[in-house]
């Protein structure tokens, strides 16, 4: 398909600006002016509409396809939350209004959303305070680790290390490093959980904290989590809860009750705000009491008269971590979702997500090697090791599934399992959809036995097949105008 720039015809217009209704013409001295016009494409509105409609049709999406991408929680995004985000009173609200003198009175509705959202998240997680500012999960991680650093600094603790299990998402070690820490990586034991003996050996007074995804990326809830917290706390280290998989334990356990001091939530996972082809997300961060003074500014405060304001006066705060108050329109969607589900609905989310994952795990285990033979939580991890012996790898199975109109599970992550296939069905998929997926996986296994060579040419139903990624990196072309 042609690029939009290749469809451009000089002189065509896709949108007309309002007429200049003022009697003056602004001038800029030529030394401040650009020399060449910006070469954005010139198309009619319909041509633009056709272009992006055609592009959209080249995507798999939750609305169109089963999308069991492990660790990403690709569940249904309810439509009413989209409408709410478009409400004029929110969509057109300027973010600097509350910073005008008495400007908070202009944004009471928006501040109330933020305040009530914080309350809901505290109740759900057992944390004592929240900031909604972080703009994505990894941004929340960085905010959290910076608060850990601020805590140690305030106490005069000399800390150097953050401990991260080897099954963690890459964002954990990357975040800790960017916040100025060195990383200690702890391997998993044969049961798929962090090796406690190795952990014990690594704990010294220089450990600032430990980052744990729980359940972890093996889909396992670490039954020793409280013992781990005890070990870390014994050296005044802090426990960071990576909330990527919070959707598995809603109403079953709260990070704040089981030893965690700081956590983030990925609203696009647990609270099903749309993934948008890779964001925008939101990564609210919760803390226990001791860390509240370090929360970023501003913070939303409820006044005695029931109205809301922003307070910037927190001398121990880590400071500004985002320009404004978070991805408001995303938080609003999550807020609406939580209100609709309520207490019982949220529990149902975890119950059904875990049921579906275990059902898949049980039905596939005869054909595919199970990474860890135990009850799983919201996702299950297999290895394509048996198929690989026949020359068919995890990526080949992924491409096979694409031809069945199924978005492949996550492959080659977690890094701890060879040829890993990580499946997260989520609670919104029906048994019929899940059964069809299982059948497709069986067919993939059948084909790997009968005709393993066939996989090399898959997928066949998509506009392209197996792009050359090496060429992309070697002959780098990321800008049309540099390679016309």
């Amino acid at each position, binding site marked *: 398909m042609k690029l939009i720039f290749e469809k451009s015809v000089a002189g065509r217009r896709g949108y007309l600006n*309002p007429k200049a209704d003022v009697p003056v013409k602004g001038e800029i001295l030529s030394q401040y002016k650009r020399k060449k016009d910006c*070469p954005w494409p010139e198309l009619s509105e319909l041509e633009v509409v056709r272009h992006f409609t055609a592009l959209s049709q080249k995507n798999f*999406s939750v609305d*169109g396809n089963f999308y069991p991408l492990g660790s990403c929680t690709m569940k249904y995004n309810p439509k009413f939350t989209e409408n709410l985000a478009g409400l004029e009173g929110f969509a057109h*609200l300027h973010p600097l209004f509350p910073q005008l003198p008495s400007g908070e009175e202009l944004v009471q509705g928006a501040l109330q959303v933020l305040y009530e959202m914080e309350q809901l998240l505290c109740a759900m997680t057992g944390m004592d305070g929240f900031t909604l500012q972080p703009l994505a999960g990894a941004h929340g991680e960085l905010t959290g680790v910076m608060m850990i650093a601020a805590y140690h600094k305030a106490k005069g603790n000399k800390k150097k290390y953050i401990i991260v299990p080897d099954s963690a*998402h890459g964002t954990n070690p990357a975040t800790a490093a960017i916040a100025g820490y060195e990383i200690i990586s702890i391997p998993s034991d044969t049961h798929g959980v962090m090796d406690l003996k190795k952990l014990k050996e690594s704990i010294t007074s220089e450990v600032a904290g430990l980052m744990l995804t729980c359940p972890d990326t093996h889909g396992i809830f670490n039954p020793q989590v409280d013992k781990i917290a005890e070990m870390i706390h014994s050296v005044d280290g802090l426990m960071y809860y990576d909330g990527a998989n919070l959707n598995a334990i809603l109403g079953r356990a709260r990070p704040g009750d089981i030893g965690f001091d700081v956590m983030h939530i990925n609203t696009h996972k647990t609270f099903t705000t749309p993934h948008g*082809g890779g964001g925008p997300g939101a990564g609210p961060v919760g803390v226990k009491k001791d860390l509240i003074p370090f929360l970023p500014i501003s913070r939303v405060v409820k006044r005695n008269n029931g109205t809301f304001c922003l307070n910037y006066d927190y001398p121990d705060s880590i400071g500004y971590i985002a320009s404004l108050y978070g991805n408001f329109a995303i938080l609003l969607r999550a807020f609406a979702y939580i209100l609709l589900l309520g207490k019982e609905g949220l529990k149902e989310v975890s119950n059904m997500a875990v049921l579906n994952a275990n059902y898949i795990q049980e039905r596939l285990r005869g054909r595919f090697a199970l990474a860890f033979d135990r009850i799983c939580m919201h996702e299950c991890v297999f290895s394509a090791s048996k198929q690989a012996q026949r020359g068919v790898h995890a990526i080949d199975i992924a491409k096979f599934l694409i031809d069945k109109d199924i978005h492949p599970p996550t492959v080659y992550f977690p890094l701890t399992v060879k040829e890993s296939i990580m499946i997260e069905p989520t609670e919104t998929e029906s048994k019929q959809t899940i059964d069809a997926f299982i059948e497709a996986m069986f067919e993939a296994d059948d084909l790997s036995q009968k005709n393993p060579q066939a996989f090399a040419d898959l997928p066949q139903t998509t506009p392209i097949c*197996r792009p050359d990624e090496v060429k992309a990196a070697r002959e780098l072309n990321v800008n049309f105008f*540099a390679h016309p």
Partner: protein
Amino acid sequence: MVPYIPHTNKEIEEMLVTIGVKSVDDLFADIKPHLAPKSFNLPSGQSEFEVVEYIKKLGAKNKLLISFVGGGFYDHYIPAAVSALVSRSEFYTAYTPYQPECAQGTLQALYEFQSSICALTEMEVANASLYDGGTALYEAAMMAIRLTKRNKIIMDGGVSPIYRKIVKTYTSNLHFEFGETAVVHGQSDREEIYRLLDKKTAAIILQNPNFFGAIDDHSDIIQKAHELGILVIESVYPISLGLLKTPAEMGADIVTGEGQSLGLPLNFGGPYLGFIATKKQFIRQMPGRMVGETVDKKGRRCFVNTLQAREQHIRREKATSNICTNVSLCAVQALIFMSLLGKEGLKELAQLNLDKAEFARQTLEKIPNVTVKRSSPTFNEFAVCLPVDASLVIEAMTKKGFAAGFPLGRYYPDMKNYMIVAVTEKRTKEEILNYAKALEEVLKS
């Protein structure tokens, strides 16, 4: 009952039998009883109608006013086709394009977005977006630190004070040195900047137009910086680049910006769109996702995530950034806006903003005791000096239905009598005249 969960009790029973457990509770056996929640005190669920009514009520509590507030976030008109197209669920319910065969829509759009940002800034390469303008500036600072292996950063006082605070917050544990210079006559203070430059300096951070709305040509500063091996980062306002000298023309090394003005609603602060562009030679230190062109097995042109070896999911603690999710959908939204506007539309829109702001300037100048700073040229935003504390005036103007401007005293304590006024194409002649009239009344009383 949750309408998004399909299972019937019968199906649940069947699945439990297959798994070989008696109840759903058995699946949670790893969560030992002593780890159970101390409470789970949330409200009961509601119907869609009830939630919608409640949130509509909250939305109605906000007051939009006729706004002359900018400060880095601008109220531009968004053509209907933008939201219609970006609301296609094939875009918004997809995820990061890990499987290129079933994500060519997102991938090609991101390649086109990168190219459109390059066209706008005239830089050689751009990534597929960062969170917002402020965090993009922080990422650029870190990039300059890595590239130069130095640790001092000079920030011009005309850079958004919010952005400067962000850069400082993030680097507070990293032992960097900062120099901050005030502006003179609205523009960057060359003398002061040059005085601070030394062999430790990694980068100078500038903004054009700056927080006061002033336009500058930073070519001289950039040339001087390069002589000393120092990189220059420019934070820009996309719409202004329809007319203004591009950062590439000035010689900037890294360009960042807030892309909200490219078709994204104000949304009380987000989601917005951070962008970053640089010279080709620096591409391997640029953070975030990047989409590149390639061919498939049959030689057909296609697009993939590329240079992923810089990123956290491969490099872990050695990655260029911890960023994972960016703001792909906002990038697609901006791309649609840029494609509708086109070459002529952008130029026209920038001129229109300039015209309206100039008219507002001339109109406000006529009010007794109001001075409009004219020591430097401006784009669609300018500083107004009032005879009294600007806060008092803005508060009084609010009661008359106008968000009159942003009080500079909030971030610049010695500028209490100043406000910055932004005028986009959405402000009509009539609104501007009414605004001036109201301001005159407020100042009289």
